[in-house]
């Protein structure tokens, strides 16, 4: 499977894993808001520190640092561009030039600004990675459902995930079948390929619709919609750990404001 790229759920049971997904979501939103609210390097460093400590406390340091590599391209881009083209250049000027419409200036202010922006990206991106690495999709949907997400939407999310592999298989089979009928997918330009795309899109759509018909019948036969208020199996309640995480993040945010 092509599962190497991107960040994915890591099956473990650290305290961060056991937390209610909603708590983590709230913490993520709070932390992102705090990070967006400031452009100073120091508070941002503090926020990033909070994220790092959270990762360390949940024994996720290694995968966490690994995941940050994904941010490298964006990070480099921000580092260079913001260093040379900050919102305001101040302090010592090390370098300045003019190319066409650009006026790159390298200054202390610019360097600090670009460092702050990098830290912001690291903090927000890093915490979102932590969230994904420690939250299983099904737990996330279940907890949303427990706090009032409509049953329909919860069903859709679960079923969409379940059908990903089936659809992948369907599309692969359709492509194979068309190739066996001497259709070549990778020759010629888009305009010429119009019919080829249709030869893929029409059977794919038909198979989706017939799947939907049969699935909807099966759903009804399993009582979908029978009870006005469907119950929910396996919801975990919040504990002191949830409170602790939100408190910790709030504290970090507050301190960074005071600075």
């Amino acid at each position, binding site marked *: *499977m092509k599962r190497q790229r991107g960040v994915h759920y890591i099956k473990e049971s650290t305290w961060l894993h056991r937390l209610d997904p909603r708590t983590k979501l709230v913490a993520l939103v709070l932390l992102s808001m705090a990070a967006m609210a400031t452009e100073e390097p120091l508070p941002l460093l503090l926020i990033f520190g909070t994220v790092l400590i959270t990762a360390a406390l949940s024994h996720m340091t290694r995968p966490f640092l690994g995941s940050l590599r994904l941010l490298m391209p964006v990070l480099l881009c921000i580092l260079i561009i913001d260093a040379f083209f900050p919102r305001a250049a101040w302090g010592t000027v090390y370098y300045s030039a003019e190319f066409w419409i650009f006026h790159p200036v390298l200054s202390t202010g610019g360097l600090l600004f670009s460092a702050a922006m990098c830290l912001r990206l690291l903090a927000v991106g890093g915490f979102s990675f932590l969230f994904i690495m420690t939250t299983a999709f099904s737990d996330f949907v279940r907890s949303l459902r427990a706090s009032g997400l409509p049953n329909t939407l919860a069903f859709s999310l679960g079923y969409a995930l379940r059908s990903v592999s089936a659809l992948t298989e369907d599309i692969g089979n359709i492509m194979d079948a068309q*190739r066996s009928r001497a*259709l070549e997918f990778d020759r010629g330009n888009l305009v010429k390929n119009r019919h080829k795309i249709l030869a893929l899109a029409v059977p794919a759509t038909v198979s989706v619709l017939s799947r939907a018909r049969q*699935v909807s019948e099966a759903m009804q*036969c399993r*009582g979908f919609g*029978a009870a006005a208020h469907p119950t929910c199996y396996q919801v975990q309640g919040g504990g002191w750990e949830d409170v602790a995480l939100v408190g910790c993040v709030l504290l970090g945010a507050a301190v960074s404001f005071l600075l």
Partner: protein
Amino acid sequence: MRPPHPDPIIDIHSLSCTYRDRGTVLKDLDLSIREGEFVLLTGPSGAGKSTLLRCINGLFQHDGIQGTASGEVRICGMDPADTRVCDLARLVGTVFQDPDHQLFSSDVESEIAFGLEQLGVDPAKMRGRIEEAAGVVGIEHLIQREVNALSWGERQRVAIASVIAMHPKILLLDEPTSGIDQSGAGHLVSVLKRLNEEIGLTIVVAEHRYEHFSRVCSRLVSIQDGTVCYDGLPVRPDLQVSERDQGSATGADVPDRPPLLSFEGIVYTYPGAARPALNGATLLVHAGEVVVLAGPNGSGKSTLLRHANGLLTPDRGTVKVGKEEIRGKSVAEIASSVGFLAQHADTQLFAETIGDEISFAPENLGFSPEKKEASVSRVMGALGLDRIGRFAHPLNLSVGEKQRVAIAGILAMETPVLVLDEPTLGLDPARKAGLAEGLRRFAREGKAVLVTTHDHEFATLLDGREVKMQDGRVVPMGGEQG
């Protein structure tokens, strides 16, 4: 076996069902089933077995666009027409043909819990009911598994467990053994037998391949021309095909002509898979013979066939068409000499008319208009498609008809080698016999034909050389050398 309860739990009087553009399917049908019975529903393809089941669980009555029903249906005293399908689901559990269409969650435990959640069962009681259902069906060991990682047969059992957990009074199953191999089917039958005997569940099974069920059911109902034509004790169906003398099979004398299609020592592992799907498979298909490849689910039949035209490239081993190795050629190039019909080919259709659909491949191969025309009308005639007409929409057809269009699209390529993966899906016995006759004729004309099938009857009709696939290797069927 418990004695059946005196009052009928399913009571049907003069039921008639009509599909919008297909005419009447069921006519004045009467049927009553008592609690605790195990009923096997048979009849030719298109007789209306699935329609009858859909009347019992209420899907037909609530599908206003597709058809209308008249007559009286009572399920535990309720009329499905006045009850929502989801409310009736408390009494009637339905297991559909394709387990993939009725499993919605990613893990088995939440799947079994799904129905209970929808019925509003108290979460505290759920674990008990889940464990009980899993125990009855014998899938306790699968509870924590991901649904996607299960085999077809295991999924079928999860589907049954998730219906059983809802404590229905009636269990309906529509063709539960299609696509399952012999041992899987045997297991399924024993689970159903246990449910019927231990819990006293009323079971109605619609099935074509009734050799599995005729031993265990308590009653056989056969539908033909929209009405019940046999209702009584299960009798062993007289299978004409199995009585045919098999001595005349061409399988015994392997022709000494050069092979047209040869697989030599094919080893193939799917990317990311732990075990190789093919492990040194060797098979020669000679000009003028039909080779029938059988074998259990997951033994690698489809995988081998996908090597025939380069859809898969072997990790080791060679595939030759004629004398030439195909490695390095594109699928489209090989398609001019190997016609390949994929499993579940009915899903590949996309054109606006049957004619366009069938001439798609010949056009890709650059046939001249006259040649294309001749070949298209020939295959349409041979497969009985000219009765449906060249201008009908392929997407509107029934499963069996779609399958025939897909087969026609491959036959029209006029390739010397034909490779068909489970071509009989949805075909009734008459069509199967026709297809088998057509394939035998191709072989007599000097083509090489390779077919996989789970269907014994079809294999017998083909009358070819039978080989079996086992754990990624091809082994001869009997003791003889293949």
